[in-house]
């Protein structure tokens, strides 16, 4: 199994719902313990997040486009964060999920240095490294309805820009949509074989002009009216 996410850059509106839903679910999760906040109501709020959304502008006006860009753990097939870990706290499961054993981590930060995506964040309160769990405590929970056995970020996304599934299964939604839309992994040149995929923005459909719109409307009205008139 190779579990991961698909993130659709075409439909993502950059609302941060994935990030906040992730924070909400994982702050009370037993997998990582709480996600600490520092000065949450102060002048300089900060804290541990597994999912961060940034916003970029590509190209120059008028040939430009805004891209909203959520980043969380890619659950790399060849995860250096696991290789460099001296304590064995970082590990990769058979289903592909990369996790940190909070009882073993010594907080050396080396895994965060080895991750090119910034997917790992040290929690200053326990002094241990924390990261996306792909909601391992949701996706296998048989107490939940089958449609709810997905990561919190996927369920929260209002534009369905996030999908979750098994990339080893060619029939899965994530595999199909990746193949159809030319999904890509980030920074493949580093050789980490990231599993999660990003779907590039689609070619926009041409907008019809006013004359075309009127002609279409008249044709539509005529086709509606013709049976009545014939009668």
């Amino acid at each position: 199994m190779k579990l991961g996410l698909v993130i659709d850059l075409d439909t993502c509106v950059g609302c941060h719902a994935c990030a906040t839903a992730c924070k909400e679910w994982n702050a009370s999760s037993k997998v990582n313990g709480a996600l600490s906040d520092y000065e949450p109501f102060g002048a300089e709020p900060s804290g541990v997040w597994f999912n961060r959304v940034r916003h970029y502008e590509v190209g120059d006006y008028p040939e430009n486009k805004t891209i909203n860009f959520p980043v969380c753990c890619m659950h790399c097939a060849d995860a250096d964060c696991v290789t460099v870990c001296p304590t064995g706290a970082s590990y990769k499961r058979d289903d592909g999920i990369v996790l940190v054993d909070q009882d073993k981590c010594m907080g050396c930060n080396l895994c965060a240095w080895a991750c090119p995506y910034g997917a790992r964040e040290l929690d200053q309160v326990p002094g241990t490294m924390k990261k996306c769990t792909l909601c391992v405590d949701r996706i296998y929970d048989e107490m939940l309805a089958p449609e709810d056995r997905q990561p919190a970020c996927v369920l929260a996304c209002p534009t369905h820009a996030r999908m979750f599934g098994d990339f080893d299964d060619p029939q899965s939604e994530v595999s199909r949509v990746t193949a159809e839309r030319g999904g890509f992994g980030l920074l493949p040149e580093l050789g980490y074989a990231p599993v999660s995929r990003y779907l590039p923005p689609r070619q926009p459909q041409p907008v019809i002009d006013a004359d075309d719109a009127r002609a279409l409307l008249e044709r539509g009205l005529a086709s509606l009216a013709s049976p009545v008139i014939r009668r």
Partner: protein
Amino acid sequence: MKPAVSIIFFTVSSGAGLGLLALVALCDTFAFGSLPAHALWRGALLGVVLVAAGLASSVLHLANPKNAWRSFSRFKTSWLSREAVFAAALFPVSGLYIVLVIQSKGGASRILLAILTCALAWAVLICTAMIYASLKPIRQWHTRWTPVNYVLLGHWSGALLLWAIACAYATRSAPFLLVAGVFGLAALAAKLAYWHSIGDDAQALTLERAIGVREGVHGPGPISAAHARLLDVGHSHGTFLTSEFGFQLAQRHARGLRGVALALGFGLPLAWLVVGVAHWQPALAAAVCCIMGLLVERWLFFAEAKHTVRLYHGDPRT
């Protein structure tokens, strides 16, 4: 990368200690420079103390040091784990070696321990360097010059300390002056080569590659050969990522600090060697001056390194 004082002190202090230990053990093994026993054990002991001080400092870097003992467990994959294992083995081996030297015992066991001490010192030095050199997201570290630098800089500072010890206790200190000079020039060449190699940013990753738009994207029309910039970073204040990877060093400061590192770390000690006054006080001063310079050099090693996370935070290239 954030220049963490604990790691800077660790790599410089244990680098000098490991270099000194290896050189003392080699001198003893090959009877180089006919150092008396009381010079050998003092040298080896100073080396062990410097390594121990460095390792103690490195523990300060850990956010959860109570699990530090677990770092021996991933020898097969992790350079940090290998460093911990070799460093832990170095202390009993070098300790036993020092005891034999103090008792002026000769023979095969002392030679064997000297060779083991040297091999372990080299192993620790290489492991320390490989921790940095193995990190692919940091171009300025992921180069063959990183281990070359760490090994040569450790031996250079260690050789200066050995020269000071030879000035104090040996009948002839000239051979050690020569050894220090050779390591000094080699280390200087390696450092200049390292700075030259990281200055070539043809291999640098770009923001466009990091977000996958290098080939262009579909906008209102096709945007080919796109270039990208950060509009909004998405957080209201700093994060772990900005504090760990966001350190910015102004170009002109970098140039100035490189000058300081070259002057203190290489220029002044090498000048002292050329003057060649064989008293231990100026020799020790040269060694201390070199270590000060290497602290600046190591600070720069961190400050000039750019992690790929910075691309996502808006840096055009790393």
